[in-house]
């Protein structure tokens, strides 16, 4: 392992020890040599790290209830076998004391798990911005059939196939899908979140240091589903600026024609690269787009990607906190639409 994660030990030491013994060995054995980090058991950011800790905590706690069954069943089978000599009480069918134990232990275990669950679910809520003194980088993610588009609204560029992120700075994702339901996932950094057509979901992640991580779609969406992967390349600030500059220099403009004839068409990133004339494209490398229309993301959410940019210069950050707020989006209109923002909806209610 070249990049040792700095595990900060919090909470009880038991899960931590367990994770060293149980998790580490097979996982490092099998993934340690690969260039990308593929799992939260090998976490590269604070969220995944906390998830790993919580994972082992739940395993350890639940074992309190599970282990007695696995250990004692064979023992009972042997001791009370037919033909054995152990006491035989065919009418014995209740015991207050055992009843109390039987309900009590699981109740206590579940109570402890529940308290931790409540705390962690809030602490690791994908919608919760991460604490940091740095301003988060905004990234807007759009799922197409079998490829992801990553829009950097503040930088005015977009990529496909590779998501480039600065290390040690919170990332604030907004996600939608231009097609069916998909699920965005970078295991080494944090959890999944669904991307849905005409709705916006949010996710906050951070990478501790530079490296290459695997990213993917978890929700089956047709024949090319297994190809809907991307590489996350986490770089330092200088490299990130280079990447942006590079994209501005070399990117293809993301115009209506490319959008409709390449992005919207079914096909994976490599197919898109081919359609864009990038003959030497390698999977996992970025396809760069610049310039991009203003409010492209907003437009896709409103199902009118190249119209809303003109008609609705509203700030793009105003996505709803929760996708439910989008339920009442206005129907698709033939005339140039003037989409109602969810905020307007909410306040007018």
């Amino acid at each position, binding site marked *: 392992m070249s990049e040792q994660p700095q595990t900060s030990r919090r909470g009880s030491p038991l899960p931590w020890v367990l994770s060293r013994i149980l998790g580490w060995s*097979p996982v490092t054995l*099998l993934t340690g040599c690969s260039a990308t980090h593929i799992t939260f058991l090998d976490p590269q950011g604070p969220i995944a790290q906390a998830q790993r800790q919580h994972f082992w905590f739940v395993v350890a706690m639940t074992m309190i209830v599970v282990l007695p069954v696995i250990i004692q069943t064979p023992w009972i*089978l042997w001791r009370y076998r037919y033909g054995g000599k152990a006491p*035989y009480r065919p009418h014995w069918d209740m015991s207050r004391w055992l009843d109390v134990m039987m309900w009590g232990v699981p109740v206590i275990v579940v109570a402890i798990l529940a308290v931790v669950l409540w705390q962690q*679910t809030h602490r690791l809520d994908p919608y919760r911005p991460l604490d940091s003194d740095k301003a988060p980088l905004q990234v807007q993610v759009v799922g197409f059939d079998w490829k992801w588009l990553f829009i950097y609204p503040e930088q005015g560029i977009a990529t496909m196939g590779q998501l480039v992120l600065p290390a040690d700075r919170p990332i604030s994702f907004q996600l939608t899908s231009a097609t069916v339901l998909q699920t965005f996932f970078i295991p080494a950094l944090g959890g*999944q979140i669904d991307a*849905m*057509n005409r709705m916006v979901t949010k996710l906050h992640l951070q990478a501790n240091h530079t490296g290459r991580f695997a990213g993917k779609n978890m929700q089956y969406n047709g*024949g090319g589903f297994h190809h809907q992967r991307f590489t996350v390349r986490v770089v330092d600030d200088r490299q990130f600026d280079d990447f942006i500059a590079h994209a501005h220099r070399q990117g293809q403009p993301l115009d209506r024609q490319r959008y409709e004839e390449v992005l919207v068409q079914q096909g994976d990133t490599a197919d898109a690269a081919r359609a864009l004339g990038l003959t030497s494209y390698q999977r996992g490398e970025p396809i760069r787009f610049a310039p991009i229309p203003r409010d492209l993301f907003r437009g896709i959410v409103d199902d009118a990607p190249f119209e809303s940019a003109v008609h609705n210069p509203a700030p793009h950050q105003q996505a709803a906190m929760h996708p439910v707020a989008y339920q009442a989006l206005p129907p698709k209109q033939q005339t140039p639409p003037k989409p109602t923002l969810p905020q307007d909806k909410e306040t007018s209610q």
Partner: protein
Amino acid sequence: MSGDLPDFIFGKLDWDTLPFWDALKDPTTFKIINAVISGGAGALVVLGALGVVILVTWLGKWKYLWSEWLTSPDHKKIGIMFIVIAIVMLARAVIEAVFMRAQQAVGLDGGFLSPEHFGEFFTTHGTIMIFFMAMPFLTGIINYVMPLQIGARDLSFPVMNQISLGLTAAGAAIVMISLVFTPFSTGGWSGYPPYTERAYNPGPGVDYWIWAVTLSTLSSTLTGINFAVTIYKKRAPGMKLFRMPLFTWTALTTAILMIFGMPPLTVATALLALDRYLDFHMFTSDLGGNMMNYVNLFWAFGHPEVYILILPPFGIFSEIFSTFSGKRIFGYPVLVVATICISILSFIVWLHHFFTMGQDAAVNAAFGIATMLIGIPTGVKVYDWMLTMYRGRVRLSVPMIYAIGFIMLFVLGGLTGIILATPSVDYQVHNSLFLIAHFHNMLIPGLLFGMLSATNFWFPKALGFRLEERWGRRAAYSWIVGFMLAFFPLYVLGVLGMPRRSLTFFEPAYLPWTLIAGFGALVILFAMLCLLIQLWVSIRDRHQNMMTAGDPWDGRSLEWSTSSPPPEYNFPVIPEVHSRDAYMSEKEQGKAHQVPDEFPDIVMPANSAMGVIIAVTGSAMAFGLTWYIWWLVILAGVVTLVAVIARGFVRKTTRVISSDEVRRTHLAWLECVRKTTPVDRSKEQSPENQGLPVPPVNGAVQ
């Protein structure tokens, strides 16, 4: 070739719906391989159906089949027919699973299946396993056993029972026909829109899925009503609720879950059908539709469904632990209360299937905690089963081997269930192979072992001879080992981030695990083979394993008090119940096999063709809807309507069996019992066991 057939007659059916057509037109090696697999499956369906027709004709058994089985309102025969459907469908779904495992075993950067084919595989596998294997299997077992356990002669609504069977048969037939006129859906067993909307999947696949599932859910709703009413109304005198065997208790809770759990899915698939056929916008992205409504409806069905699947096995294992430990069940009232808790809680946890959809943290946390609560009564049940064996005399007969496999493996599934119930961790393992491993960990050791265990347990009751033990053991052990090999690696794969429903993968780290899982699938295939051999050997040697006396396992509940197989009317005289373990206490008090003072005339329901009619019209209508063959839809609808109305005019709905006949049959059986030598439990598995145990001494099984 399309456009050859007149649309008016054939709808959207065309030559290229045949599974090998595409490969004929454009034969590449890859297409040929896939065509051989799907064409082979289609051919198997056609040949299988033809084979059955020829066989029945050759044996001259059409009349027998019609009057003794297809039109019989007898709950026992209907139960057996449900189970036959389940086993046929199980065979198909396991073979499909082996193909998927084979694909993933060689799936590093390739494989041999096309994406469409793989998509159909996981969709049909999941749909069949849930709706056409698990549901008919447990419905069949409850159908057979529950009325016997409560001392009833039949279900409350025997004709409705036939209709339930007909609807399930129609759904299963549609899934089978989809192998001949392809394709089936690729939307998974959950069929989430918008993927399954016409805009994204215009073909017939999703329609097949919709109608197959709709037929199945209608069937199960009716079944639920039937079971619940029967248990409330038809218990033998003295059989108070708290004297019912635990299997009957779980049958009751399952029935209630069916009544409330099935309709949400019927509604969801019906609304999806409206979207697809009539341009409604229930679940589309535009014009006010919202796919989240589908997801909620689906899981409002889906979570109660998993308890519909698991509660009957809980009941079965309760009977088996108690019977094969020669001991009362430990904590009967606690087990009942735990069962009721589980069934109530099962309605308030559905959201754990979509923690990742972006709802508020508090909502996720609340549902996560509610889910973990279910772990408490479930854990209590497991301890009660262990304490049932504790201080008993445990005999490792085949049903018990499954039960031991169940208890030890099921708790591991519980562990991973708690992991999945924790939202912050679920974000990592949701929709990965970890989830697949988890629910197979519940469904194979839980549901499937339960069904196989029940089959071994009650088979002698139903057919009059025991299932052969040696092959039974081999099957049971192979299932256990095969399960562990096939599914434990998936936990690792899931934690390593491998998505479910992946055709191929590109991480070399996954390969060793997919290989082990592939090997496990072969062991499972071997287990299936053992089951087949077990059945074959048992039928061949049936005369050695005869059990006419009816009580091969020293059973505790009323079904063991009657002959094997039981007469159509189950009990010549309705038994009177004074305690739990009703038959065991009769045996303890030496009151078993007494000659009744008098025999009544018995009124039984008369045969009816309603079930067959519904099976035919149901599948015809589903087929017509799938392929837009409107004349067939209308015809099937009209026939159904006429049949239902005509049924209202049928006067002779019952049949009387004279007391003379009942007396003759019963006395003959008692005579036979008298001639049987009682055996103690050491001879349980030998041919000497003819179904008459040595009576217990002070409750101690001998």
